[in-house]
């Protein structure tokens, strides 16, 4: 599994770099309509073919990757950040705040994720920020629960007692002593969650709740091109392949990290 993890990282870096340097990798403007090259199959000029408006699929996939990956990463960072702080406070202070916060966490975790995300994303106008908010609004809960549980085991640890005896304030103990301890665990959790976030982003984009046309995202390309599946398979095949490969790499990476650090999540 170690090798699988390394290969996953390599593929993820490759996809990210290609997307980041998309203007240099592909000579085509992703949104430029070209009536001379409608629905062309993959060729040397257009490695992934062109769509029904003559746009180069390869460059649309690369530019779409910028959105899909950065939305998933941003949502993951926000989920982690919020979950980390909430979990720290909840676990450290305990009592009524803890009970209330954990009730909220249970509430969120018992909603069906995609429906909740749809609910959140119809409040705001469709767009990438809406998708980020929708994912993070649901995502922080699992981080909060994990961190809280971990803090409960650390709260009475000797180094925390020592800090307290030295007269450290609660805030200092929380953010200087306890928070760094939670970072590795949070990162592993993030690795496990990112594959799912890529899929949620793709699903919300597919449903038309993400970035709006003509901006390309992997999910919206599949949604827009699905009518052409029998005449021009490449229009749907490649965006979906990118989603699947990216999600697969993140999932494999997450599993590798979990096994490596011997962590068990429930």
């Amino acid at each position, binding site marked *: 599994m170690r090798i*699988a993890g390394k290969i996953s990282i390599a593929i993820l870096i490759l996809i990210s770099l290609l997307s980041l340097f998309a203007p240099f990798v592909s000579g085509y403007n992703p949104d430029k309509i070209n009536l001379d090259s409608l629905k062309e199959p993959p060729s040397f000029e257009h490695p992934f073919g062109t769509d029904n408006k003559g746009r180069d699929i390869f460059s649309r996939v690369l530019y779409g990757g910028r959105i899909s990956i950065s939305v998933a990463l941003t949502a993951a960072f926000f989920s982690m950040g919020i979950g980390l702080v909430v979990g720290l406070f909840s676990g450290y202070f305990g009592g009524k705040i803890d009970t209330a916060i954990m*009730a909220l966490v249970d*509430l969120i975790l*018992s*909603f*069906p994720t*995609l*429906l*909740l995300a*749809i*609910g959140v994303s*119809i*409040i705001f106008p469709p767009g990438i920020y809406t998708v980020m908010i929708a994912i993070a609004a649901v995502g922080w809960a699992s981080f909060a629960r994990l961190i809280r549980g971990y803090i409960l085991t650390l709260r009475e640890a000797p180094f925390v007692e020592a800090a307290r005896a030295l007269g450290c304030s609660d805030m200092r103990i929380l953010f200087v002593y306890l928070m760094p301890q939670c970072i590795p665990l949070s990162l592993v959790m993030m690795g496990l969650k990112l*594959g799912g976030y890529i*899929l949620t982003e*793709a*699903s919300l984009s*597919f*449903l*038309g*709740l993400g970035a709006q046309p003509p901006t390309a995202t992997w*999910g919206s390309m*599949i*949604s827009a091109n*699905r009518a052409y*599946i*029998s005449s021009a*398979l490449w229009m*749907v*095949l490649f*965006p*979906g392949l990118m*989603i*699947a490969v990216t*999600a*697969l790499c*993140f*999932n*494999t990476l997450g*599993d590798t990290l979990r096994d490596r650090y011997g962590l068990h999540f429930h």
Partner: protein
Amino acid sequence: MNTYLLKRLFLLVPLLLGVTLLTFTLTKALPGDPVLSMVGERAQPEVIEKIRKELGTDKNVFSQYLGYVGLMLKGEFGRSYYTNRKVFDDILLKFPNTLKLALGAMIIAIPVGLFLGFISAYKKDTITDRVISSLSVTGLSLPVFWSGLLLMLFFSLKLKLFPPSGTGDIRFLILPSITLSLPAIATLTRVTRTTLIEIYDMPFVATARAKGITELKINFIHVFKNAFIPLVTVIGLDFGSYLNGAVLTETIFGWDGIGRFTMEGIIKRDYPVIMGCIIVGTIIFVLINLLVDVIYHYLDPRVRLHENSR
């Protein structure tokens, strides 16, 4: 036992409050008149007046919310902007189709997932195990709206084995069920594998082996009995998520269930439809979770003892 059930039922209250509060906030956040957005622009003035009265738009937010919940309890989820039909009636009409799809997916996922998970655990760390594990991670990473389209292309458009889309008899049901079952098979395989591996490490398995009991008996009587309960939980929870995961699958295959209804609502910005579907979807999900918990409770004497001693 009954106190346990009561406790669990009581926990439903905050959940339902949560979901209605969410959709209520949505109605308030949407531009325009919330009453009009519930009954639709084309409703008769008397109906609008009646809803306005029941909702109490002239009163404060809190009593408005109470009025809103009251309307929901009567099955009044508002009317679609476009068809002017009652959302709740449409949901009742489409629910059996979603249920059929979810059952279809379950019939495929349970035997396949259990079988693959068992083989994987039994042959732990061999090539077979690695292949199955890689397949199940892949299954988890496939976007269903993409795998569904590819299945449709291959089996309906190329091989012409099944109709590509529509609602109808079993021939229409097979492809969407397979699509919906793929992530479920992946999850079930992974959970079965981990559960069984944990059980294989337990002393009673070693004892059974030492006593010379056949592998067949060990697996089917000793191991499976212990794995049964966690697996029932996962299957039950999955069933709840099939009912909801159907949004994407039903859209692809034009299957006339709640999922496609939700999608149409989203495309047309038909807010009463979206909100009705979210509320009903959540209630179903939560009720299934509750049911699974109760079944779990009945099946496992350890859980029962633990609950009673508290």
